[in-house]
């Protein structure tokens, strides 16, 4: 019952708002916010429900192919559901303030409701087809929300880019689903698939088992996650997605939707576990993403972009954890007893709170500075907006993994721990360096934006945000600190790994992360304290490794040029050979046969006489010999 409410309430809310926002006007906002609050309450009830896997609604039911809307209720989905509905509700409330003056408010809230519906669908999905359905729908809502201010060319381009990049990921996802579906006789129910991989026809000992197939299927599914969770090389859309309103960035592009890739990978972790090669590739991609994004973040000046790259980097962390855990299990470094916790999910859980908080905080800053986003045009905000500053500082600390106090520390330790145990030392090193870079750029952000003196008028006149915006910040700040505590984590059913507080292999991980933290933060303080403009300038990082430029070339060459050539060839050859050539031949023939009709009587008699002779020759001399 709670599952249906959580799923369908936002759907109807979105439908009502999007179809009738002219008539509804202000009521639309109330409907949306109301539904998000009810959904949150329902998700609280949902936390207490039993494990289940049942069909909610029929969808397609043909022959042996059954793809219904069926929910899989277990610890993972309950915990994720709480995160989604909780942060969703807070963002709804925050948006009441942030979007107060926007003319298209109903549209915004409608899209927000649509997102809640789609995200809920992903969380609850009991089979891969349903997962894919909602996977695409979050893409749509993300498209609508990024493109909320569509009059701006940059927003219009960004939403298109986000959707298309995700489409490429979905291309792989769909292939993966099809492969699994074909291999498992049309059944892609997650539980059944798990059984099939662990003890069914897809287990390694089964006849006809193909390791290559498992790897390919896993990688195809992973491609979906690469798109949605903005992993290298499909990461380019996420920074651009910051063109959307800031609450959207907090909800979708930091806390929930982008984490859906990780969630999905954890959902199919049996698949990742079944293929060591796939696990290594996944971990590698995660590591690259984490490191690369962190490097890019160090040179960004837009407050939201810094956070966006940090999100990328943290997502890379999570993905790396997914791969690392699977690799560790192969190496025998995994926990003895099956561990219900998963570092990736745990990091997802803590990250959701503090990253949403950071985004909302940045939203408050942007709101206060009249939509100024350049950190070098801020400064000294600490005095003008103390609550925002303190909550932002807490978020920063959590993100950096301030030891023992913040939730981020524990989850980061879990990830680094997994990387350490994976058997690939390079993963761990990459993770540690990323941690140092994280500390560096977050400290830089905090110093430049909040410390020192106001650098512009808008920063000077900044005022503390209104209550509806402060309240979510505060609540999230509390969660940023306490969410890793056992009491909290257990009741919220976070997937906290059991061995997190007792690292097995000495203290290597702990020491490394402490060194990273000190080095990063210290470096940032040393470099940026009291500076009015960036003392460091690394073009490569500032320009994001030139990915956008490279992709633009690829798109121009591989798509537009090829399209041009193909179009030309199609016109010339296909149309030419199939249509124009025959018609030209027929026309020629017609003209030629017309020449026979010259109008000269002698010509006609000649043809007639010739015809007679030809017929006689044919009938009397040719045809009898042919013996037909």
């Amino acid at each position, binding site marked *: 019952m709670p599952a249906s409410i959580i799923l369908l309430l936002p759907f109807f809310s979105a439908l009502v708002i*999007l179809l009738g926002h*002219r008539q509804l006007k202000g009521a639309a906002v109330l409907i949306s916010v109301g539904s998000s609050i009810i959904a949150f309450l329902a998700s609280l009830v949902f936390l207490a429900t039993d494990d289940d896997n049942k069909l909610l609604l*029929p*969808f*397609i*039911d*043909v*022959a042996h*192919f059954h*793809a219904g809307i069926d929910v899989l209720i277990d610890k993972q989905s309950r915990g994720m559901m709480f995160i989604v509905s909780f942060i969703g509700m807070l963002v709804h409330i925050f948006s009441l303030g942030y979007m107060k003056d926007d003319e298209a408010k109903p549209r915004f809230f409608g899209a927000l409701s649509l997102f809640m519906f789609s995200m809920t669908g992903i969380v609850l999905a009991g089979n891969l*087809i349903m997962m*894919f*359905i*909602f996977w*695409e*729908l979050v893409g*749509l809502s993300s498209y609508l929300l990024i*493109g909320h201010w*569509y*009059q*701006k*060319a940059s*927003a*219009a*381009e960004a*939403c*298109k880019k986000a*959707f*298309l990049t995700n*489409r*490429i990921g*979905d*291309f792989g996802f*769909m*292939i993966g689903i*099809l*492969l699994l*579906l*074909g*291999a498992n006789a*049309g059944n892609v129910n997650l539980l059944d698939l798990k059984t099939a991989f662990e003890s069914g026809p897809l287990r390694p000992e089964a006849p*006809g*088992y*193909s390791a*290559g*197939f498992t790897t390919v299927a896993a990688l195809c599914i992973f491609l979906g996650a690469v798109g949605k969770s903005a992993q290298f090389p499909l990461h380019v859309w996420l920074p651009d997605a910051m063109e959307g309103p800031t609450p959207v960035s907090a909800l979708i592009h930091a806390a929930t939707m982008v984490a859906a890739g990780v969630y999905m990978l954890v959902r199919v972790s049996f698949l990742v576990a079944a293929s060591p090669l796939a696990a290594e590739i996944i971990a590698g991609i995660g590591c690259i993403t984490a490191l690369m994004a962190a490097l890019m973040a160090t040179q960004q000046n837009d407050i939201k972009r810094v956070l966006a790259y940090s999100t990328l980097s943290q997502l890379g962390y999570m993905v790396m954890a997914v791969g690392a855990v699977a690799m560790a299990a192969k190496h025998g470094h995994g926990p003895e007893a099956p561990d219900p916790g998963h570092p990736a999910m745990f990091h997802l859980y803590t990250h959701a709170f503090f990253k949403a908080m950071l985004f909302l905080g940045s939203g408050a800053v942007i709101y206060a500075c009249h939509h100024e986003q350049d950190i070098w045009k801020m400064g000294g905000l600490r005095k003008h907006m103390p609550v925002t500053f303190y909550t932002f500082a807490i978020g920063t600390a959590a993100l950096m993994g301030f030891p023992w106090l913040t939730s981020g520390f524990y989850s980061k330790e879990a990830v680094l721990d997994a990387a350490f145990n994976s058997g690939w030392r390079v993963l761990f090193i990459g993770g540690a360096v990323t941690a140092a870079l994280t500390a560096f750029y977050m400290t830089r952000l905090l110093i430049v934006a909040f410390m020192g003196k106001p650098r512009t008028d808008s920063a000077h006149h900044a005022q503390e945000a209104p209550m509806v915006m402060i309240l979510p910040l505060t609540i999230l700040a509390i969660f940023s600190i306490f969410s890793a505590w056992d009491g909290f984590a257990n009741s919220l059913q976070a997937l906290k790994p059991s061995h997190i507080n007792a690292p097995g292999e000495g203290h290597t991980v702990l020491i490394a992360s402490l060194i990273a933290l000190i080095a990063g933060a210290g470096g940032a303080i040393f470099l940026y304290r009291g500076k009015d403009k960036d003392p460091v300038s690394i073009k490569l990082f500032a320009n994001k490794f030139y990915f956008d430029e490279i992709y633009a070339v690829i798109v121009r060459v591989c*798509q*537009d040029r*090829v*399209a*041009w050539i*193909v*179009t030309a060839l*199609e016109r010339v050859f*296909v*149309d030419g*050979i*199939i*249509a124009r050539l025959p*018609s030209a031949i027929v026309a020629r023939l017609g003209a030629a046969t017309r020449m026979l009709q010259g109008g000269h009587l002698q010509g006609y008699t000649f043809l007639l006489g010739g015809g007679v002779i030809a017929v006689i020759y044919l009938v009397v001399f040719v045809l009898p010999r042919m013996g037909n």
Partner: protein
Amino acid sequence: MSVLEIIIALPLLAALAIWLGAPAHATSLGATLLNLLIVLVTTVQYAGKAATGLAFTYSRPILDNPSLSFAVGADGVSLILALLTTLVMLAAIWQIQDRPAIFYVSSLLIGGGALGAFLTTDVFFIYAFHELALIPTFLMIALHGRAEPAQRKAVAWKATIYLGAGSLVLLAGLAWVVLEFSGGSKLTFDLEALRNQAKLTPLADAKQAQIFFVLLLGFGSLVSLFPFHSWAAPAYATAPTPVAMLHSGVLKKFGLYGLIRIALPLLPQGPHVEWVQNALLLMLLGNILVMGLVTIHAHRLDDTLANSSVMHMGYIFLGIAAGSDIALKGAVVLMFAHGISIALLFGLCGRMRNQLGTLEYNKLGGLATHAPAFTVLFAFGAFASIGLPGLTNFAGEVMIFVGSFTDFKAGVMSNLQWTVILALWGVVMSAVYMLRAYRNIFHGSPTTGLFMIDPAFSQRVPFIMLATTLLVTGCCPWLLLNLMKSAL
């Protein structure tokens, strides 16, 4: 007398009445509305029954030998297509404004012809009704097309000769079928009799392949199967709005319907013989990949839509190539979905052309600002054709893909399955061109001088109707699938 005869006759009679002087708008709208209601009731009735096999059958003998009769009958597939026809017809007629009576007459004739083709069960009449619908299509493109007279005539000619030649190849194929499956004593055009005979004495695979290929070429060129497609894009781009809606939305589905209804049951092995299958897969990949790229290259909305409509046929052919029950039902669902979505898009496109006078992307922009409702409606069509879940096209596509993977062996990919993978890339391409169109037209800041406001509510109704259909059947594709309970 069968209710189906009424359904077929109603639009044709209305067309005659208008030609003889009845008020065009009221008569045609009334007739189509009534027809839609009748079709809906009939469909519900059919779903309420066992929903398998032919129903509402009735036969009027015309010739003894060759045995020919005006026989009507409908199963789920034909009812779904009849529903599609009446819906699109209503929308197409409703959106006509300030046009001469010939617009109404031709719309009614095209729709009536399509209904006749979908609801009769005699090969002769299936073929005949389709041809009937082609004439007004041709005339309307040539006379009222959106181009200079010389150019639109050239376009109309191209389409007509293509379709005419295709029809003749089809006729030869059908003649072959009739000759092969008529049994001993008598030639018959009755589809059921032919099917029974095909079940009794199936042909050798090699022969099935040959006949199937001829039918494929015939039906295929009516559906713009690559490389017999080059008539379609210019014709749709030039055709007057209701004609573009009806032909691309409805009439084009005839070829696919014929393949599913005539070719596959009679020649079940036809598409699976290797050379036919490979040829078909190559051709449909041409539809999807080549036409996908051509669509990406388009610079005008009507070009994009017209080419995309060619491209999407590839997916339906993929369903036919796969041939499994799931894939075929998916193909039917996709036929329905594509019909509704492309009609919606062409309808809106026509309205834009009327108001703005241009469809060039580089001249348009920011229409969403002043025409939000219009934008939402367009988004429905655009996202449906991208294959967004929740709109009908997705259900059809996913069923086709899944249906192609039913006999998958882990680690061994058949040609069909490789094709599916390539075809999936087409889904990415359709997102590219549709979003590009959407961004160029609706996003961005409004262009000065090109100004458009939402149509009045009454003019929005036909499009809302289509969009709602997409949403309802997209969320509940089982509504359609329940009509096709027996295997195809």
